[in-house]
Structures are given as C-alpha cells and as structure tokens.
C-alpha cells in the first residue's frame, strides 16, 4: 500500500516569477512551460554555469528565487529570443532574464556594462564612449572634407548634422567616429549615390544603448528619448538604424 501523500502546509509564498508575470502581457506565458526543452536544445548559452533556459524557468517556477537572482548566467543569456521563437507556448524567458538583471543591486551589475551606460548618461550624444557633440562634429566634418578633396568624384558628398526636415535620421555606432572614422565613409558614399536626404543629430546620434543591457529602465528610456526626441525635433520621418 502506498504511503500517504505528503501534504504541503502554509500559504503559497510570493515568488519572483509572479512579480515578473504581472509586468508582462499575458504574464509572458511564464506558467505555460511543457518542459519540452526546445529552448535549451537550441540555446548557445546552455551549459554555461551549469544552467540552461528550461532549468532557469523551472527554478523560477519552483520559487528558487535566491538561486536565480544570484546566478551569473543572467548576464550570459543574450536575450536573443531564439527560445521564444522555437517555444510551442511562446514563453518569454528573455523578459524573465531582463527582470532578473534589474533585480541586481545596480552597483553589483557587470562593471563594463555599467560604465558604458553611465558614460552615455553623461553626454546628450548618448555615446557609450562619451563622445561629445563637439568631438563628433569635428570628426565628421574633418573626414568628409578629407574625402571630398581626395576623391573628387565625391566632392559634393555631405554628412549633415541637425539638418531640419531630412527624411532619414541616421544613427552611428560610436566605434566609427571614435576609433575608425574611415569606416563611416562607405556608408556616406552609398547615401550620396542614391540621393538620400539624411542627417545625424548632434544629440542622440549614437546607435548603442547599454542601459538597456544593464536593465536600468529609467536610464535606457532617457537614452531612447534623446534619440527619438532629436529625430522628432528635426522633423525626420524615419529613424534609420545602420546596424
């Protein structure tokens, strides 16, 4: 004869995953897991830190809050969403990860990401490398003038900053103006040849947003608002991502 079933006493405790569910549309489907493992089998982060997406979600569902909130794996998942793409229940594991990141004390989050976010908060260009509007303007003008001269076929090529009413508001990863400015030129040439009406913004030209990776909601909103706000202020119809 079977032993008597074990009865679990006490009230259901509030767990971290329930808080995340409240934040997401349809609760991110976080309680719909069929444990099939499609997520983990196609996740490049499977095995790092002895973790994988299914395991992380099961631990969250079991209320193992201390373990999931201290796991460094949360910084090794890139939130690439391939797990959602293959999931039969479309479970939003990346949002669970994002909110786990957000639950870390800010100063304990990875220093590199933190520093890039803080740097972008310091200048309205929102460059994670701290490039100021003046530095950006100098580099862009310097390079465009150099190429107008050196390659006369492109003597009319422009790289405008804050051109009002331009169709495209173009962003640029900080890496180019800061470390390899010549790499901006092929892009400008293409835009010149097709006759695109485009501009950079003195504010918000930077394409990167490390505050989002840091899971600092106020900060990433600040960055995104500067970028979108400058495009709106100039009356640009299209915010064009160059990557």
């Amino acid at each position, binding site marked *: 004869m079977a032993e008597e079933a074990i009865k679990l006493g006490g009230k259901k405790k509030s767990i971290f995953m329930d808080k995340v569910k409240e934040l997401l549309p349809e609760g991110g489907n976080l309680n719909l897991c069929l444990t099939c493992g499609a997520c983990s089998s196609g996740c490049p982060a499977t095995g790092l830190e002895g973790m994988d997406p299914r395991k992380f979600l099961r631990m969250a569902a079991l209320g193992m809050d201390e373990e999931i909130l201290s796991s460094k794996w949360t910084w090794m998942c890139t939130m690439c969403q391939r797990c959602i793409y293959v999931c039969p229940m479309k479970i939003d594991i990346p949002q669970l990860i994002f909110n786990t990141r957000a639950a870390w004390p800010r100063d304990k989050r990875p220093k590199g990401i933190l520093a890039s976010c803080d740097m972008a908060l310091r200048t309205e260009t929102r460059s994670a490398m701290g490039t100021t509007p003046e530095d950006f303007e100098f580099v862009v003008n310097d390079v465009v003038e150099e190429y107008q001269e050196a390659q006369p076929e492109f003597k009319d090529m422009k790289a405008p900053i804050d051109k009002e009413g331009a169709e495209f508001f173009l962003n640029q990863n900080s*890496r180019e103006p800061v470390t390899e400015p010549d790499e901006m030129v092929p892009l400008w040439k293409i835009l010149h040849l097709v*006759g695109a009406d485009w501009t950079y913004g003195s504010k918000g030209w930077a394409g990167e947003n490390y505050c989002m990776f840091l899971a600092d909601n106020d900060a990433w909103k600040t960055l995104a608002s500067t970028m979108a706000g400058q495009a709106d202020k100039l009356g640009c119809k299209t915010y064009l991502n160059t990557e």
Partner: protein
Amino acid sequence: MVKNIYEYYAKWIREGKLKVNSDWNKDLKIKFTVQDPCQIVRKTFGDPIAEDLRFVVKSVVGEENFVDMVPNRSNNYCCGGGGGFLQSGFKEQRLEYGKLKDAQIKATGADYCIAGCHNCHAQIHELSEHYGGNYPVVHMWTLICLSLGILGPNEREYLGDDLKEVLVFHPETAM
C-alpha cells in the same frame, strides 16, 4: 517610424539607384556567408529583412558565391555578442557561447563572414581569431562600395589580404 538600412540597400538596388554587380568576384570566386543579427531579424523585422539582406549579399558577391549558414534567418543562432555580453567581463563564457557560431561559419566553407551589426562584428571577429578559422568579418557597406568600384585604400580595415588590392578607388591616397 523606425527602419533598418538593409531594407533600403535592397530597395535602392532594386530601383537601380545602387548599381552594384558581382563581376569583380566572377573569377576570384571568394565565398561569403552572412550572420542574421538577432536584433534586426528575429527580434524586430523577421524573415522579410533576412531576405532583403540575402538579396543584397547575392547582388554584391554573386549568387554562386553565397553560402548560407544552417540554421538561418529567424532560426539562426545568436553569436554571443549581444545583450551586453561583450562588456560583461565573462570572456571565457562568451567564447564558449560563440563556439556554435564559429562551427556554423566553418561548416559553410566560406572565406568571409558578413556581420550586419557591431556587436556581431566584434564577437565573430574574435571567434575567428580565437578558434583559428581566421575568416575576415566585414560590414555590408564595405562590400557594396567594393562592388561599385568606389572603395578607397583606407576604407578596407576588415578586408582580408585577398581583397586589399581589388578594385581600389584612388589608390594614390593610401595612407
């Protein structure tokens, strides 16, 4: 409205505004594969932009010189450069993560990998060196301008030696 430039590259080629062609690669037969950046493909615009990206690549390097990764498009794997991984300090784990991407690229037999995103570019570049594949990793704009014959000598940072001297625009300006 937020758009990605890959859609426009494809549109401008279709409209005849960007007169690219792949003649430069007819005899060279240099093979290319392309990474589908998660942020641009799976997370934002889906398979249609992955098709645009392939249309651009094939127009520029020649259809017969393009080899797709498996899996691909929205089903492709992340390279491990996204989500802040490059800045997180977990280098060893990041390279381990990227092993899958490196294996995918090597399996295509391609000489080059095109990366349409800076995080992908930095990560795959590092994977190429770390795992010894030594395939160059290039931006799309470089190849578009190469095929148009307007790529100068100082705009070739990421091209391999096999392409450093091909169709050089204003070679006298080399620095």
